[in-house]
């Protein structure tokens, strides 16, 4: 047996059981081997199951199927030697920095003197010296995540799990923390033997990881595996670096669902999951795309950094535009389509008409809601009806997001209204026709 292998995951599948329909599959057939000495990144869109995978590794969630072996033995519940850093920091507001850091040691029943000594070491290592007595609410976001890191490192884990550890921080703070962490790692001062991190930042993944697993959504699965062999510290402007980032953008957008290719989850195509992106942002992006320097075609990484948008923000936007055939995504580029150009050139009212037309033609759910409303004598339909139908094909969260998307778009297009109190779609503000 390979002694460096820390964790092995074979054929893992995670599904939620729903009584009315088939199981909702969040993760499908995931295989993963983690060795000592490597940093592995799980990269994907929100909802691709990468956080779920991390929780399976942490022992917080048992997989529905498949096997996880930790240091050669089957994993059952949170294991010794695995520590976790949370996106939201997950600090206890009523405990001081020192007490927060000691928590994991306390759970192991380590005597007080040793606890204090080790906590102080970890605190000093992570650059928090002097803040031992502070409460989390007195600290900035970056300092709080340092506490989170110290709390994880103090147990000297073999495997350090990080769930989007920098995404709640501002750009500068995140960069500093990333650099500090990588410095400690390259100098061999980080008391952890392997790192597994979830991220939705492509550059972040390329900056930190030795290996990147690119996830596809619906159901979530590992679609590509990339090795990054650039030495640390890595330079974002390095040509090799830029090429890898471009490649990943290409991988992510190649799978972007377009109306023609999206595998229909049901016969009618009603239950296509939608991201609730604001029509304001869509209009803004179309205008930016039409204007110089892009003039109708933009490279996604460039667009993302110019607009300061993460992949998670930009891709859903691009996909919504692609779904409505206002623009198209291809090989890491976003290209304006004819309808999109007409939209940019039009005034408010014609824009709404154009949007309404696109919505009725390309979004089956919106068209169905409007048709049902037209048929009803009182022009009201309970939203529950559509929610139920959506939930037969997707998780309740997705169904809710899809409904929110269609409500927002329908309102903007003045295709239909929605009465929140009654949870009904209405035609009250619309001209009935």
């Amino acid at each position, binding site marked *: 047996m390979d002694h460096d292998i820390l964790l092995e995951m074979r054929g893992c599948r995670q599904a939620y*059981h729903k009584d009315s329909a088939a199981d909702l599959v969040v993760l499908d057939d995931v295989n993963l081997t983690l060795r000592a000495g490597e940093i592995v990144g799980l990269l994907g869109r929100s909802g691709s199951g990468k956080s779920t995978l991390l*929780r399976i590794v*942490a*022992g*917080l*969630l*048992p997989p*529905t199927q498949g096997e996880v072996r930790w240091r050669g033995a089957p994993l*059952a*519940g*949170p294991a*010794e030697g*695995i*520590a*976790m850093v*949370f*996106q*939201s*920091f*997950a600090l*206890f*507001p*009523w*405990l*001081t920095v020192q*007490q927060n850091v000691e*928590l*994991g040691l*306390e*759970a*192991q*029943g380590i005597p007080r003197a040793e606890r204090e000594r080790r906590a102080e070491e970890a605190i000093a290592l992570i650059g928090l010296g002097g803040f031992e*007595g502070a409460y*989390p*609410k*007195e600290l900035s976001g970056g300092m*709080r995540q340092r506490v989170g890191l110290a*709390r994880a490192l103090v*147990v000297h884990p073999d495997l350090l799990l990080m769930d989007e550890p920098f995404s709640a921080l501002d750009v500068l703070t995140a960069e500093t923390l990333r650099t500090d962490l990588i410095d400690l790692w390259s100098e061999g001062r980080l008391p952890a033997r392997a790192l597994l991190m979830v991220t939705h930042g492509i550059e972040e993944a390329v900056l930190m990881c030795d290996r990147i697993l690119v996830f596809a959504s619906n159901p979530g699965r590992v679609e590509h595996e990339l090795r990054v062999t650039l030495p640390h510290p890595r330079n974002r402007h390095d040509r090799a670096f830029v090429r890898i980032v471009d490649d990943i953008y290409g991988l992510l957008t190649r799978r972007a669902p377009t109306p023609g290719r999206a595998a229909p989850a049901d016969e009618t195509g009603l239950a296509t999951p939608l991201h609730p992106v604001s029509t304001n942002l869509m209009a803004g992006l179309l205008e930016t795309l039409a204007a110089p320097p892009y003039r109708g075609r933009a490279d996604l990484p460039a667009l993302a950094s110019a607009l300061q948008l993460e992949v998670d923000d930009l891709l859903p936007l691009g996909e919504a535009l692609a779904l409505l055939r206002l623009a198209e995504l291809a090989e890491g580029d976003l290209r304006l389509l004819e309808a999109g150009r007409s939209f940019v050139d039009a005034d408010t009212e014609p824009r709404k008409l154009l949007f309404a037309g696109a919505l009725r033609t390309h979004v089956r759910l919106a068209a169905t809601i409007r048709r049902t409303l037209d048929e009803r004598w009182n022009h009201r339909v309970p939203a529950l009806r559509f929610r139920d139908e959506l939930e037969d094909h997707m998780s309740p969260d997705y169904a809710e997001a899809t409904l929110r998307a269609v409500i927002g778009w329908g309102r903007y297009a003045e295709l239909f209204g929605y009465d929140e*109190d009654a949870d009904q779609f209405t035609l009250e503000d619309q001209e009935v026709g």
Partner: protein
Amino acid sequence: MFLPAPTAASRTRRLPNQWDLAALLFVLGALAAFAHGAAGTLAPIDAPEATHLSLAATDLPYYALRTVMRMFAAMAASLLFTFAFATLAAKSRRAGALLIPLLDILQSVPILGFLSFTIAFFMGLFPGQILGLELAAIFAIFTSQAWNMAFVMYQSLTTLPQDLVEATRAYRLTAWQRFWRLEVPFAMPGLVWNMVLSMSGGWFFVVASEAITLGDATWRLPGIGSYVALALEQRDLGAIGLAVLAMGLVILAYDQLIFRPLVAWSGKFRFETTAGANAPDPWVLALLRRTRVLRRAAEGLGAALTAIGSLRLSLRLQPSRRHTRGGSRVAMGRAGDIAFGLAVAALAGLALWHLTVYVAAAVSWAELGEVLVLALFTLLRVAVMIGLASVIWLPAGAWLGRRPALTRLAQPAIQFLAAFPANLLFPPFVVGIVHFGLSPEIWLSPLMVLGTQWYILFNVIAASAALPGDLAEAAGTLRLSGWLWWRRVMWPAILPAYVTGAITASGGAWNAAIVAEVAAWGDTKLAATGLGAYIAQATEAGDFPRIALGVAVMVVFVVVINRLLWRPLAAFAARRATF
């Protein structure tokens, strides 16, 4: 973790200062008083001094002490109950499905009507001992305090932040460690606030439960409540005044020594990630934090509690839900649910059957109709009085809340009024009604909301003061005023708080009906037509079936009103008018 950590500077000097001396004397005095009071509860019931009372002013401090001790005993019991009950309800799905509705019903049981049953029970447990009476009184106070505390604890347990729960699991804290590290601290602000409210409400019941007549027997436990009862019997207005004064001092001490420090301290556990503006510490908390000897004692206590909390006890309270998978478990769970449901239904049916048989043996169906009519009378009184209180306190509270200087003055005064047991203030009303020959049907009604109306005012002021500054400014620049301002700005802003206050006030009013619809001044007895009077008279006659009937009808009324009126209103307010 349980007490404020010392600052680095204060670690260096440990010598006592002059405040320490005062504080030490204070603590020793409290201990001595406690021992003296405790000795009194162990006497046999027929010992001369056990239940004998005098109206001498010099005995009053001792009576006050006994009253206070009952209160604290009940609070300790409530806290234990809260931890056990809420944990069970939150961790076991089946238990929760039964316990939470049960809590809702228990909350609606008129405690004073129930008293006669508990006395019979506890006297049976400790025959011939005053301890039985004491326990009955403590139990009555407990029942007035425990439910809302258990409920708020349950709510916190079901809304624990997911990431913190995952952190405790990932770092492998045991169930015991998680309870003290996460669950209790997270519940702390809500729990402390409800403890404090419960204590405030409890003074009413501690006073009411000290002097009890059940059939031929009358018991008086040494305490302020029975002192007042004796004074009423002997038509001694001066003694009543003294009792009111003593109670006032007790409440003042409670407010300053416990209420304020506890609420300020619990702010430390508020689940917020940003540092907010902090109000200055109440003086007692400042004393605790700055007085060296006291602080060391507090630190020691804190460290001990922390050590207990970090013991690696692993009580597997919760079934390991995370490892349920596969269909057979689900099917087994369903079968279990059905069996559990059937068992509960069978027990409930049995209880209903027993109650019906018990009551039907003594009471005719026609009387049930009469009792329902009496309940309607009481309902009318409660509705009118809550309506009147709202008409007065809504505008007053909204107005006060917009004036920070006045709010600062008014809040403590109202907290004091809400805690003050209104039943001590009944005698002047009764004397007035007797003197002017007024109709008790009308003039006894205000007594029902005498104590509980303050919850409306208190909540409205707090909500009005909390109206976001930008909204107030926006309303100003839009030049909203008069009715429009009231309807669009103030009313939505205070609605949720008003509903909360009104629920407390009306619940309290139903309870108070039992002592407010009947009154006595010496030999003159006044009674209004209503369910409260019915229960009170049945209690006096020791007529258990009628007490049971009256209490049951009252519970049904309160529950139905809660479900049909207050719940929907609160849900609406929460949905539409929260920021």
